[in-house]
């Protein structure tokens, strides 16, 4: 190696790396939100590793954790028994309502379809830099997960949708708290529609495009999806209005607390059936 290069090896390595990444950035920017080939490749390599780490830890087990877990099981069981009872009652009420609305066959078909319409997934990672933007789950195309499928938490509250990159065993979920997310929602008490867009800085969201002249929405009002966006099925709990203000523009400034709890996001359900996704 020439002496000139040897003396400046470190600087050249840095310059080379910075240049390569600057080129990489310049390739990224025109793509916008679409995942690049390099990003997809990196995701394909590292997501299964992360998946493996979590699976190994789960498989190996933690005896102390299991002991503590068992101590909590009894209390949880009691809570679940109560919840099961309540859900059975709710289910019975819903079946009654459906039977009133439709004939028996149609109601059964509807309920059977709901049973098969989701895939349960564990959250195996969060966005490394912006936790409120996206998460990674341990289900992918092999399990029937496709782009744009809605994702809900264990209580059926809206979490987000499947976006690229997606792999055979892992997928990325764009949270509704991402600023690039847009969900059509409306108030449960007052049927005023708007778009729910996230605020990753605070982990909350904004309901936008509600005219400033509209006075019907109130604080603490629950919001649910409308289904107008043809991505999310109607009726999913999306959030609660925290505050309503104006900023002099044509639209109101409505802050929304998402219905799902980010700290409690361990298991999610991807709605794969006819009620979820576009496929």
């Amino acid at each position, binding site marked *: 190696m020439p002496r000139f290069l040897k003396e400046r090896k470190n600087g050249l390595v*840095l310059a080379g790396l910075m240049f390569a*990444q600057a080129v990489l950035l310049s390739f990224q920017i025109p793509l916008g939100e679409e995942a690049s080939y390099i990003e997809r490749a990196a*995701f394909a390599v590292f997501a299964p590793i992360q998946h493996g780490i979590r699976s190994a830890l789960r498989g190996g087990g933690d005896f102390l954790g299991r002991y503590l877990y068992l101590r909590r099981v009894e209390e949880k069981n009691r809570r679940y028994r109560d919840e099961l009872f309540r859900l059975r009652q709710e289910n019975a009420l819903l079946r009654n309502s459906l039977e009133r609305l439709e004939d028996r066959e149609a109601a059964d078909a509807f309920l059977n379809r709901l049973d098969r319409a989701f895939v349960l997934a564990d959250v195996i990672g969060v966005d*490394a830099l912006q936790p409120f933007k996206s998460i990674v789950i341990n289900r992918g195309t092999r399990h029937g997960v496709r782009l744009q499928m809605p994702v809900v938490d264990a209580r059926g509250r809206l979490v987000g949708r499947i976006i690229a990159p997606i792999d055979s065993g892992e997928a990325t979920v764009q949270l509704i708290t991402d600023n690039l997310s847009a969900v059509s929602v409306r108030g449960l008490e007052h049927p005023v529609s708007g778009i729910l867009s996230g605020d990753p800085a605070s*982990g909350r969201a904004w309901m936008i495009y509600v005219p400033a002249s509209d006075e019907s929405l109130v604080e603490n009002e629950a919001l649910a999806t409308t289904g107008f966006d043809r991505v999310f099925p109607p009726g999913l709990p999306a959030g609660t209005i925290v505050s309503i203000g104006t900023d002099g523009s044509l639209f109101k400034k409505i802050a929304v607390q998402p219905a799902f709890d980010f700290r409690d996001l361990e298991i999610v359900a991807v709605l794969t059936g006819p009620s979820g996704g576009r496929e």
Partner: protein
Amino acid sequence: MRNWIDGALAAAAAFLAFSLLRPLSASADLVVDVFSVAVLVFGTHKGEAPGAVFGAACGLIVDAFSLGVFGLAGLSLTLGGFLAGYVSRKINIQPFFRMFAFFAVLAAGTFAGWAGLSALIGRSPLPWSGGLLLLRPAVSASAAAMINLGIRRWKARRER
């Protein structure tokens, strides 16, 4: 060759820590940047060129798990790894508090670089979470200083 093996092990350790942080606490992701810690410690021990390469590799992993423009974390971590290697050879960072201050400045610089690039290129608001994010450089620096101290003691014991 030794540097590559150490780098792979350090990246694996950082990746393991990153995967384990989330189950421990949802806020842990915000206050500790494990990859930044790994890059600063690695750069300090191995020098500027291996530090920069390791920073670029860690940046690739971080960006793979982040929405937005791919390569933002890579740039700041590459620079962080290089500076950790370069500056640690120019000044004495043996005393613990000086070492902590050194890591704090570098962690803050890496954080500022990432935040600046995110604002400039990513055009994405940062997850401040009521100021929790501002703890990241200090917590990362503390972690880096502790790890560095541990490695130094381990090396000293091995040489004895």
